[in-house]
């Protein structure tokens, strides 16, 4: 009797592992063994048609755009700062000089964001680098949603400005604090 009860207690695996797929579970049905199916090429989810060319490609015609597709507010910059520190800092370092931890472990050093060419580059160029990659730099299209890519650019502009700030940029009433 006790044996039977214990046996019955052991038969619970079916409810623990039900015949449904959890995300990323292996599948015996599909040839590539992926239960999470890759999208069929050309699929567009409802409401996600990329009509806004400026927003999704950072280009107008074949020129990089020079303006942001939405207003840059304090929240956008803060969002960009957070995302920059997650996705770019490992290589570009927190200030953008290109000496991140991975570079110190052997990756090719990326150019500093503070060279004239990149300070003058249009925002669309940065968007393009993140979306399509650039030389040895991998693309981040799959990891970072479009809006966050723009937010990161806003933050890079802040970084660039920060390295060339003059005392004129400090509000008059705060100058005494800075000079200390």
């Amino acid at each position, binding site marked *: 009797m006790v044996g039977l009860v214990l046996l019955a207690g052991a038969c619970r695996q079916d409810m623990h592992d*039900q015949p449904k797929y959890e995300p990323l579970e*292996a599948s015996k049905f599909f040839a590539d063994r992926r239960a999470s199916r890759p999208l069929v090429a050309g699929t567009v989810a409802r409401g996600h048609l990329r009509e806004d060319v400026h927003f999704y490609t950072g280009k107008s015609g074949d020129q990089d755009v020079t303006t942001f597709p939405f207003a840059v507010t304090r929240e956008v910059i803060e969002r960009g700062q957070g995302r920059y520190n*997650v996705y770019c800092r490992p290589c570009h370092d927190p200030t953008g000089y290109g000496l991140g931890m*991975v570079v110190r472990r052997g990756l090719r050093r990326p150019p500093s964001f503070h060279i004239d060419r990149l300070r003058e580059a249009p925002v669309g160029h940065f968007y393009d680098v993140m979306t399509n990659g650039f030389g040895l730099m*991998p693309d981040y299209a799959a*990891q970072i949603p479009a809006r966050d890519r723009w937010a990161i650019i806003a933050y890079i502009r802040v970084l660039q400005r920060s390295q060339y700030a003059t005392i004129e940029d400090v509000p008059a009433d705060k100058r005494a604090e800075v000079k200390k």
Partner: protein
Amino acid sequence: MAQIFHHSTNTFSKLSIFGAVFILALLLWLFGAFSRSSYATQAGVDREQPVPFSHAHHVGGIGIDCRYCHTSVETSAVAGIPPTKTCMNCHSQVWNSSPTLEPVRESFRSDRSIEWTRVHDLPDFAYFNHSIHLKKGMACEVCHGRVDKMPLMHQQASLQMEWCLDCHRNPEKYVRRREDVFKMGYEPPADQLAFGLHLVKEYKIQSRTSCSTCHR
């Protein structure tokens, strides 16, 4: 008729009736201890992986943020395991001839997924969602432990219902500021309870213990 049992067996039978309570209690306790043991819950057991991926190297050593790889953790139920492309962002250049990383390169060339061994796996009748826990100030570290010190991933908590409920009943014991949820090696303030109660109010954390929260 002569008595079969000697008079002294009376004490024996009394003792054993009395003792049965203890024996049952002992059995129950053993059962409880067993089902909470790391043998039954698999907590603390390192898993073999097809590639010896080390969080200690990548998180502790290089300082990569969790979200670089577990991109969907803030926005969806599942944290997600990174695709091979994410590894290749760096490993197309760094250690790009290391034999340890051959399965990663092979996966990238052939477009076949690396089959990681699952470490955390709730039974399918329990529902869990990462995004709400992060929004309400529950840190990776509280549930997954010092990931930045794990050469191979293991499960830290028991993942049993009583573990979930302990926190759902008293979230103030664990809550942090939202900025700190990705931090490893966080030191809770000395007055965690008071601070926690304050955050519980600020983040409007409710104590969710109804069965349908998790069994839906």
